[in-house]
């Protein structure tokens, strides 16, 4: 189910209201061919992204969040990947677009910040060159000008003495500096959409906060729409305007950050939040956990894939619930659960029993 524009009036600056989505994903499916058949990674995702908003995709490993975001720019295309569905962006349908078409989108309109910046940067090229390459590829500027722009960009992402550091190689940078350089590459052409794939996972906590601050301030400054893929709810609370929770290849809940974090509806979201330790308050003897583990791609049950682990299973759960709003006053907060569909109130203590 699509999120209609007027429901997403939740951008941090409130300006994303009543606008057409810039990126519109419908029924996106990604599967990986293996010897034992096709393993589905993304199982029918509908998603809208609005200009200038920060949308977080949250889920655990294997929930399909990375596969989904990578397929938007065709970075996981290959003989073993099957991608179907549509993703409309600036008049181009990204899923069926040719490589040639995609190349004109990649780096220019949609850029990606990858997780492990040391691996994501070419070890044999100077940092400045790697940023400048992005610029010369999409802008008609001289090599010298591109280099100056790269130095400027490196300064913008908070790398000190950028003219000097542009001459450095990735291995000479610290983890935080590498991630800044990665960000400089991604933002070099002022893209409309930035996909940040677990941008802080490989970093230590203080550096994580710095990188998030950087992303947030650059996003505000440039008006970039950001899709941030993460498993870290702290990151979500910090930076996101809206949150989509993915479980087993599907979006199970989507809404504003406040809605999803403070009034979660789907039992999985509730369980996820309950199992997150708070910074304040008493330290619990043990954190609540969700029993069981997510089904592996090939072993997904029919119907709701969370049902085997859910404390509130109904007979209806054998049929796949659709992602829809269950609150007439706010259609922006949607979840895919029969409890909402059948208007069965969930007892409050459920959070602790999960």
């Amino acid at each position, binding site marked *: 189910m699509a999120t209609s524009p007027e429901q997403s009036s939740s951008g941090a600056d409130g300006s994303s209201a009543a606008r057409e989505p810039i990126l519109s994903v419908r029924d996106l499916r990604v599967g990986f061919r293996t010897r034992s058949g096709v393993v589905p990674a993304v199982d029918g995702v509908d998603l809208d992204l609005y200009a200038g908003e920060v949308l977080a995709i949250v889920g655990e490993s294997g929930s399909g969040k990375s596969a989904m975001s990578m397929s938007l*720019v065709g*970075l996981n295309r290959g*003989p073993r990947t099957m991608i179907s569905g549509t993703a409309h962006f600036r008049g181009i349908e990204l899923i069926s677009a040719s*490589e*040639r078409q995609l*190349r*004109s*989108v*990649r*780096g*220019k309109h949609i*850029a*990606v910040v*990858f997780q*492990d910046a040391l*691996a*994501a*940067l*070419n*070890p*044999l*090229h100077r940092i400045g060159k790697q940023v400048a*390459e*992005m610029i010369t*590829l*999409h802008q008609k500027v001289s090599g010298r000008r591109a280099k100056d722009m790269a130095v400027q960009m490196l300064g913008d992402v908070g790398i000190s003495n950028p003219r000097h550091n542009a001459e450095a*190689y990735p*291995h*000479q940078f610290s983890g935080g500096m590498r991630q800044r350089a*990665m960000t400089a*590459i*991604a933002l070099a052409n002022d893209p409309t959409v930035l996909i940040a794939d677990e941008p802080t996972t490989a970093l230590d906590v203080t550096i994580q906060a710095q990188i998030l601050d950087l992303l947030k301030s650059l996003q505000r400054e440039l008006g970039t729409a950001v899709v941030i893929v993460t498993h870290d709810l702290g990151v979500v609370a910090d930076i996101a305007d809206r949150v989509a929770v993915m479980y087993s290849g599907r979006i199970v809940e989507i809404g504003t950050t406040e809605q999803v974090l403070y009034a979660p509806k789907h039992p999985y979201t509730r369980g996820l939040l309950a199992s997150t330790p708070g910074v304040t308050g008493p330290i619990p003897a043990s954190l609540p956990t969700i029993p069981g583990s997510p089904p592996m791609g090939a072993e997904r049950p029919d119907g709701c894939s969370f049902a085997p682990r859910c404390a509130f299973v109904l007979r209806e759960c054998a049929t796949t619930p659709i992602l829809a709003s269950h609150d007439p006053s706010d259609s922006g907060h949607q979840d895919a659960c029969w409890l909402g569909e059948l208007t069965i109130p969930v007892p409050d203590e459920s959070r602790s029993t999960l």
Partner: protein
Amino acid sequence: MTLVMRLSRPLRSRTLGMLIVRRLLLVPLVLFAVVTIVFFAMRLIPGSPATTLGVAGTEGLSSKQIQENIDALTKTLGLDRPLLEQFGTYLLAVSRLDLGYSFFGSNSVVSLLKNTLPATIELVFTAMIIAVILGVVTGVVAAMRRGKALDSIILAFATVSFSLPWFALGVLGIIVFSVQLGWLPVLGRLPTSLGYQPTTNFVLLDAILQNRPDLVLPWIEHLILPALTLAISMAGFITRMVRASVLEVLGDDFIRTARMKGLDEWHIMSGHVLRNSSLPVVTVLGLQFGSLLGGSVITETVFSYPGVGNLLVSAVNQHDYLLVQGAVFAVALLFILTNVVVDILYYVLDPRLRKA
């Protein structure tokens, strides 16, 4: 041997000067080992140069006279001295860069090497260049067409060529191109009719120095077949290495970054894949140069090519101790120096080895 181990351990962040010095410090140690092994190995071979010399042209003499002849020669050549004393004498001479004289004819070993080493260097480096070009092109193409028919064809050729013995390839080449088709000369380095008077004995260099452009074409005609013979099996090896290396690099994260930037496949290959995948290939290249030198001995013999290999084979047959020792010494030196160059190349290619 701890010193050797320390000097030859993997490269770490060092300056280029340090690197070269460390490698050059290894040279005398390696050469000492080579000289020692060859010295004793030669004397393990049954027979002696005195016998070979003493028997020659002795028809009609009694066996006693022949034996006296041989004994006299043994004494003259100093082969009656204790082995360790001979070894010591030789080492001392070598340390003064005096490699001695051939037992057959009065040529000094150094002058013989001066005549033959340039020919071998021409052959081996031409082969190396051909092998690298052939191997890199086919390896990259195979990697880009992975799993397709072209990939299988290239791999099959690479495997076959890698397994073919040099002498078989050489003889086949002579039969097809020289005998059957008559396109290329059969043997040698240059026809005597050209009246080539070596200055440096590097034909290409001499052609320029002596203003003899007429030397170049015959030189290439004589060189191409033995060089190809040598190159082909090495190319097969390089093809497989390059293919594997390119495929590995293609799976690296920074290639995904390059793709994210919007680079097309050609620019990804030329700008990001090639240099990164050359690193493991370059490392192996230096070592492979050794087997190329070994192959040159056989190839030169097959083609009667006047190089060190050819010289070495006849010297071994004649028990010409000093010449064998000197020739192996020269080949070992060539091998070491090539590897120093390879080390420098590696250092230039990979900034991670340089000091920050």
